[in-house]
Structures are given as structure tokens and as C-alpha cells.
């Protein structure tokens, strides 16, 4: 009686065939559609048809909300990547050997589907594994791709798809050559070269000017030592609210800072350095005794006040710091 279950299932299959199109038919239908334009744009009904239970193909469906009304930034950022991925996939797999259908369902076309899936956010990428056939998965439930790390590139999604489709061809993502960008770059390059040649006699004295280089060096040193790279890498906010409607310029904690804060600190360092430079280099060159006395007091005073202020700021950042100078005790 071994053949009995097989027979029964075959009977069932014929039974469903009568009601619906067969899985093979559906695949060919959607595959032809995707050859015409990929990804396939779905509606309520076609979504149900594509994902209905006995299927021997895989369906990757992006549920998205492109309409400007929904203000889904991530959806719009991901859409070109998704289009690119599905186009290059279909192009590399015209015969449908990978048995993968890539499709998109927009919120405005499939409100009911979104409701029934209980989706609160978009975009969501579902991968419906085959339920019958050689690649059938144990569970018919779709696998969900998370967009937790912001917008994903086509390559990342491609790697994820490939991982879930073993033993099948994975046509690689082919980015079209961006001609505009190439032409633009070439033109700009040629233009700037010409400009450089023309302007050379005027630029040369600037390049050879020691003051310019000194200024560049000092500014970059001040930037780096005031934690600019931390802002770049961590993407810290510029300022932050204090919870009472005001603004805090200084982040609490030793390992933390705001963008504005580093600028203030860089300015303080700058003032201190400049005071030191002025006292060393400029003041001894003032020939008038009275003017020199005033300059010494001004620069020396500025240095003292600024250092005192810097120490007081540092005490804010590091609670247990014991040292201070008047007047900012």
C-alpha cells in the first residue's frame, strides 16, 4: 500500500488544479510578467495568488509604501536598489532556473494585505519558501528581512537571498554604468586642470606661502584635538535639549560630547594658543613700551581667564576633578 499516499496527494493536486491554476502555471505566468518588467507589481488578488500554499517556487516580496503621503524615507531610498536587484536577477536568469519571483506590493495597492499581516512599518521584505518540490522548506511561513540597520544595498539583500536559496543559480547584481557621472567627472577634471594651469602663476605664491600652511596646520590640529573625529564617526547631535525647553551645549559624561561643544572647546584652545603665540612672538616686537605693557596684560589676562574657564568646563565633564583657577572656581 506504499503508493496510496502518493496517489491521494496526486488526487488532491488535481482537485486544487480544478479550482486554481497549478503552481507551475502560476510560476510561468509571473515569470513572464517579470520578464516584461521586474519587479512584478502586485495587487491584492495577485499577491494572494502568488503566495497561495502549494508552490514549488520562491517568492521574494517587498511590502513598501512609496506614496509621498506616508513619508517613508527608507522605502524610497531602498526602491532603486530593489529595482536594480530584481532587474539584474531576471536578466541573469531568463529561463527561470532559480525559480524565484521578485515582486513589490505597495501599500496603496494592497491595504488589506498590510492589515492582515499586522504590519506597522515599511518596508518589509518577505521571502516565501517553496512548500513542495526539491527545495521545499519545512515551514511555509515567510522569512522576514530586517531593515534595522538603515537602507540596505542591493548587494546585501542579494547575499541574504543567496543564503536562503542554496543550490540554485544566483545571478549577480550588475550596476549599470553611470555615464552621467563619468562624463561629469571627466569634464570637471579637465576643467579644473585647465583652471589650475591658467591660475598657476597666481596660485603658486599662495601655495608657497608659509602663513597659509601654518593656518591650515593649526586649524586641523585644533579640530582633531577637540574631538572632531569623534563627531564624524559617532554622528553626535549638534546640541541637545535639556528637557525644560532650553538647550544644553555640553553633554554629560566623560565619554560623550556634542558638535557644538567641540567647537567651543576648539575655540578655547585656539584662544589659548593664540595668546601663547602672541606673547612669545608679537609682544617682544612692539617697540612702544606702553603699548607693549597693555598687550602683555591683555594677552596674559585672556590666557588666564580662558584657562580658568576651560578648567571649569572640564569639571563639568569630569565630576571629581579637583583643580581650578579663579575666577571660574
Amino acid at each position, binding site marked *: 500500500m506504499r503508493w496510496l499516499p502518493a496517489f491521494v496527494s496526486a488526487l488532491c493536486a488535481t482537485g486544487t488544479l480544478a479550482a486554481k491554476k497549478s503552481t507551475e502555471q502560476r510560476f510561468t505566468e509571473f515569470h513572464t510578467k517579470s520578464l516584461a518588467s521586474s519587479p512584478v507589481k502586485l495587487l491584492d488578488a495577485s499577491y494572494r495568488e502568488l503566495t497561495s500554499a502549494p508552490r514549488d517556487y520562491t517568492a521574494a516580496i517587498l511590502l513598501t509604501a512609496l506614496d509621498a503621503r506616508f513619508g517613508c524615507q527608507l522605502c524610497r531610498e531602498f526602491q532603486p536598489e530593489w529595482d536594480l536587484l530584481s532587474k539584474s536577477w531576471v536578466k541573469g536568469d531568463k529561463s527561470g532556473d532559480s525559480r524565484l519571483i521578485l515582486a513589490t506590493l505597495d501599500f496603496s495597492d494592497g491595504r488589506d494585505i498590510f492589515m492582515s499581516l499586522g504590519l506597522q512599518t515599511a518596508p518589509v521584505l518577505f521571502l516565501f519558501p517553496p512548500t513542495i518540490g526539491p527545495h521545499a522548506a519545512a515551514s511555509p511561513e515567510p522569512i522576514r528581512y*530586517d531593515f*534595522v540597520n538603515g537602507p540596505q544595498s542591493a548587494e546585501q539583500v542579494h547575499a541574504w537571498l543567496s*543564503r536562503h536559496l542554496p543550490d540554485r543559480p544566483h545571478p549577480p547584481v550588475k550596476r549599470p554604468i553611470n555615464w552621467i557621472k563619468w562624463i561629469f567627472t571627466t569634464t570637471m577634471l579637465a576643467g579644473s586642470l585647465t583652471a589650475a594651469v591658467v591660475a598657476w602663476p597666481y596660485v603658486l605664491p599662495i601655495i608657497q606661502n*608659509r*602663513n597659509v*600652511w*601654518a593656518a591650515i*596646520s*593649526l586649524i*586641523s*590640529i*585644533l579640530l*582633531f*584635538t*577637540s*574631538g*572632531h*573625529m*569623534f563627531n*564624524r*564617526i*559617532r554622528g553626535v547631535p549638534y546640541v541637545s535639549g535639556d528637557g525644560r525647553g532650553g538647550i544644553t551645549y555640553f553633554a554629560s559624561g*566623560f*565619554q*560623550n*560630547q556634542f558638535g557644538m561643544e*567641540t567647537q567651543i572647546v576648539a575655540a*578655547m*584652545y*585656539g584662544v*589659548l*594658543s*593664540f595668546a*601663547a*603665540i602672541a*606673547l*612669545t*612672538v608679537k*609682544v*617682544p*616686537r*612692539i*617697540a*612702544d*613700551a606702553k603699548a*607693549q*605693557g597693555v598687550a*602683555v*596684560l591683555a594677552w*596674559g589676562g585672556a*590666557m*588666564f581667564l580662558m*584657562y580658568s574657564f*576651560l578648567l571649569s568646563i*572640564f569639571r563639568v565633564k*569630569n565630576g*571629581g576633578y*579637583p*583643580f581650578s*583657577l579663579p575666577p571660574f572656581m
Partner: protein
Amino acid sequence: MSADTLEVLASAGKGQSTRTVLRFIILSLIAGAAIASRLFSVIRFESIIHEFDPWFNFRATKYLVANGFYNFWDWFDDRTWHPLGRVTGGTLYPGLMVTSGVIYHALRALTIPVDIRNICVLLAPAFSGLTAFAAYLLTNEMAPSPSAGLLAAIFMGIAPGYISRSVAGSYDNEAIAIFLLVFTFFLWIRALKQGSMLWGALCALFYGYMVASWGGYAFITCLLPLHAFVLICMGRYSTRLYVAYTTWYALGTLASMQIPFVGFLPVKTSEHMPALAGIFGFLQLLAFLDYVRSAIPSRQFQTFLWLFAGGTFGLGLAALVIATSAGFIAPWSGRFYSLWDTGYAKIHIPIIASVSEHQPTAWPAFFFDLNMLIWLFPAGVYLCFQQLADEHVFIVVYALFGSYFAGVMVRLMLTLTPVVCVAAAISASSLLDTYLNVKSPNPEEHQADDSADGSAKKAAKAGLKSTSKPVVGVYGWLSKGSVAGAMTVYLILFVLHCTWVTSNAYSSPSVVLASRMPDGSQHIIDDYREAYQWLRQNTREDAKIMSWWDYGYQIGGMADRPTLVDNNTWNNTHIATVGKAMSSREEVSYPIMRQHEVDYVLVVFGGLLGYSGDDINKFLWMVRIAEGIWPDEVKEREFFTPRGEYRVDGEATETMKNSLMYKMSYYNYNSLFPPGQAQDRVRGSRLPEVGPSLSTIEEAFTSENWIIRIYKVKDLDNFGRDHASAAAFDRGLKKKKVNKKKGPRQLRVD
């Protein structure tokens, strides 16, 4: 008292020999201060090796001393990275161990009996004294005033940025590497200034020593060519540069290739390419052209030659790119590359991003480590622009790159500190020299010359704008006194700051923790050593210990037991395996542990004491690293609640609660508290009433303050049951029987 004695006293410090003696005494005192300020931890705790990496260095040194140099060179260590082992002799920088070994044997030869541990503990302070001296020499090459060198020496000696890696007991590569760095730079400047092959060869020798000691040698390998390149761009090519650079490069590269760990890297990897193909090749070309130019006077021919040089340079660059893409030259190594593309490490190499000292630096860290030097530093760089000789260009280039790197990675504050000390010393000394000059100018004299000063102005036009006028000097005692007084206050504040920072932040061994009792007395928390001692005394000698990689070196050094992974993170997959075992359910972890023959699992838990550096806080990195290898089995997302929070209390996700790490950390923790009151003091959350239960491992040891918890991995069950049901049986739960459906009872009536 006769007039003669007064005369002698007044003239003291003026003669050349007196000055030398004074300078020697001052330098000795500075070295003494540098050493003394690093001894806080020895006085407060004991002579003990600190932290993590030093424990490996210490273990390797002991091996070297016990087995001799050749055995050390061929050392294969089968007690780490079980079951892979590590070719330790070929994968470490041997400079540090060999240095201690030489000192040990030298002292032995002098019949001074000293323990190798004390040499290791005190090596870093001893070398800091030498670093101060090297900073003195380097600064003397830059500044005309000898006081700048002395200031640089004291800055270098006590700057917290350097102390952070060189307190007593911090037996790490950096301990000797910073001395070698500064000294190599000094020798390079000397060689460049004199165009001397001898100094160039010495520079190469110390460069070789540096390569043998620290992976940071790449900083020198990149900085010297860059300096040469900038000099060439400024049109300062000279035979001095040619001699110094080629001598250093040829001998230095040969020396560096003697280290097995470095081997052929200097000719194969991208980070060494600027030194080789870039500047070394370019200098040969320039030398050739220079020779041709001196032989042929034709103007057009020279233009042609320059074009030829440019073309060759371009072709060479293209060849380099092609060789790289064809795979002959390895591209930038990830660790190095992440310095430029700062987002790279986070995506591709989480293991690098996970280390706290690889994080970017916030501004308070700069001020904390350098205090007033941080604002004297730009002033010093500006003063370098005033003279801008070849050696000043070096300071400018070093300052720019050093500050960039220090901004990207906290750890590289160490390479920035020397240049900050040198530049700040130049600035401070010229400020003090100006205002401490007893002689005041005569006002009338200068007012007169001011008008007839056209010639001086023209002469100074090439320099900075601010130096176009002649130096007059400072009038008046008030000006001198106020500036000198303020400067003294700043310097005293600097010394106080350095002492305070060293004593409070950088002198903790981290193996032993200190806390204050309510009455103010010190209480030592010694859980680490307690646990390692337990392992040493209660487990078999070859019992394998699984823990997160941070503790690998300590287990190897203190408990002397084989480990699966350690701080030499050479095999990411193996680390990910441990991460997976920690972050999966018991049923998944158990086979992994069996396959790796794990006998004990060690976790660090700070919940009771409020010790924040524990494993639950590092847990996400374990998950991330494991996810990098098994993206389908370990998912970071599942350790966060739907609202995106990382929680350990009742609201924690199921994956979190079932992970081995969570269970091991909180197992039996409830029993310390009244029911329902269990609290985690690090994360400040209340734990669920029912704690986790364990079936495949059992608690073996928990230290006094619960910081270290050790679990024994159970053997297979005697009756062949799986562990979960065996544990359930032991707890007295009945095996659930499948109830067969029976019909309702009926009274049988016959």
C-alpha cells in the same frame, strides 16, 4: 665673606662644564620623577602584573628565561587556542621579552638575585626615564634654547598620555616601544641634519628594535617617508636627505625582516609601500636626475627630465595599483585601513570595533591626558613654522598625523604624546626665555630705529607675517613678572594634574580592584586571583577553560590552564564559536562545548558589586561576532526587546533569557536576596522572581563578590538521557506520561 666667593657664586651656571653638570643633575632628577610617579600601583597594591596582555608577555618572558632563546623562537604553545594551538614564537613581537631576559641575565651575572617578575613589573617605569632623555635629545635638535629640551623631558616624563601605558606592572609592548619611537625619531633627525650614514645606520638599528617590539612600528614606516616626501615637495631635496633615507630604509627593512612575525611583509603589503616604491624609488630617480643636471647645463633638457621623473612616478604608481589588484601586494590590512575609513571596522571586523581602546577619542580624553600641553602644542607648531628647517617640517608633519590618529583611536594618544611634549616644550621655553630675560631694552633707542628698518623687513618676507618686525624685547618688570608668574602657576597645576590623573585613573592593576569602606579605609576586591587560584588548585592540569577572549591571557598566566580563545585574536571563527556557545540555548551550546573538550566555563558577572566591565555588558559583541559567522543561527535583533531595548529583567526577550551567558550570570542569584528583590546593580534592573535553571552545566565556583563564576560542563548522562530530562528528574519532576484516552468509568454489571 670675601668678594671672591661672591664672584664664584654669581658665575656658577655660566661656565660650560657647570652647565653640563647641572643639566645632567636635572635630567637624572627628571628620570627619577618619571619613575617615581609610575609606582603608585606598587605602593598601593603590590608588585603585580596588570590587566590582560601583560599577563601573556609575562608568561612568554618566563618561558624565555626558563628555556632559552632558541626554544623561545620556536615555541609552539598548545595550551592556548585549544585545539588549534598557537605558533607563539612566530606570532609575537619578541623585543619586550628579550629585553627583560637580557636584563635578567645581566643582573644575574652581576650576582644580583632578582625575580623575573620584578623586572617585568619595573621595566616600563625604567624605560620611561630613558624616554624622557630621548625627548630631551629630540627637542635639542629642534630648538636653539637648551631649556626646551629639559622642559620636553619633564613633560614626557609625567604626561598622563604616556603614563597610561607605562605604570609599574603594565608590562606591555608599549612600555619600551615609546622610548624606541622617540629615540628613532631623534636619530633620524640627526642623520638628516648631518647627512650622515653612521646616524642613518643607528636609526635603522633602533628601527629594527622597534619593529621587534611593537606593531605600531608602521607609524615610523609611514612617517619618515612622508617627511621625506614633504621635503621633496618643498624643493628641499638634498644629498643629506638621500643618504639618510636610503641608509635607514635599506638597513631598517633588512633588520625588520629578521622578525618572523614581520617576515616579508615590508615588500608585500600596502602599508609599507609608500616607504619602498614611493619614496625610496623616487629618491633614486631624483638622485639620478640631480647628477645629470650637474653634468648637462641645458635648460630644455632639464624640463624634459622633470617630465620624465613625473612620468616614471606616475607609471610606478599605476604599476603598484595593478600589482595590488592582481594580488601580488596585499591591500591594506583591516586594522590599518579602519584608521582611514572609520566606518569600515564596524561593518567588516567587529572584533576590532569591539575593543574599547579602538574607539574614537572625545575631547575630555585629550585634556585629561595632556592638560595644558594640549593648547601649548599648536603654539609650538606655529613656532616651528617660524624657522621651518628640515627638522621643523618633521614636527609639523608628525603633529598633523599624530593628532588625526589620536582623534580616531583612543589608543593612539600614545603616539601623539611625544610630539605634543616636544612642541609644547618649544613653545613654553621660548615664552619663558622671552619673559625671564633680566635685560630690558632701552625705549629711546628702538623708537629711533623703527623708521629706518626697511631692510630688515625685506629680509623677513619669506617667513611668517608676524615675524616681519625685529625683536625688541620686553620692557618693564610688571610684564615679565605677570607672565612668568602665570606660567609658573600653569606648570605647577600641570604637575598636580599629572599626579592626580596617574594616581586616580592609571594606577589600577584591574586584576585587583580597590573600593572604599564607609569609614574611608581601603578595601581590596581580589576576586580574579581568588578564582584563578581555585582553578589552579582544583582542576586537572589540562582542563580546558572556556571564557570570552578578554580573560584568555589571564587564565593562561595566573591559572595556568589551557584556554579556547585569548587576547591574541588571530582566529575570528574560533572566537565566534565561543560567542555562539555563549549566546545560544543550552541544547545548542552543549555539543559545541563537548566538541571543544571544554571542562569549565568562566564568566565575569558584576551585578552584585556594580562592576560594569562584566560579560553581560560585553555580551552584544559576542552576539555580533557570532552573527558574522552564523547569521542564521545567532541574531542580534533577538536580544533586543521589540522596543529596541537591551534588557536583563523580566522583560528580556526569550532568546536573551535562554542564552547560556544570561543563565550562567544570573544562576542562583535570587538566593542572595529576599524573594522578588533580586537586583542587578550594574544595569539597575530588578530580576524576575524565578531565576534561570541549568541542566548541561553545574556551578563549580563563585568568588567572594560574585565577580567570577565558574561552571563545570557535565559529562554525558549515565543512562543516556538528554540533560534537560535528567535535570528535571533530579528536581523531582515526574516524567510526563502521555495519558491514554479512556472512556468514562462504567460500573460493570453482570
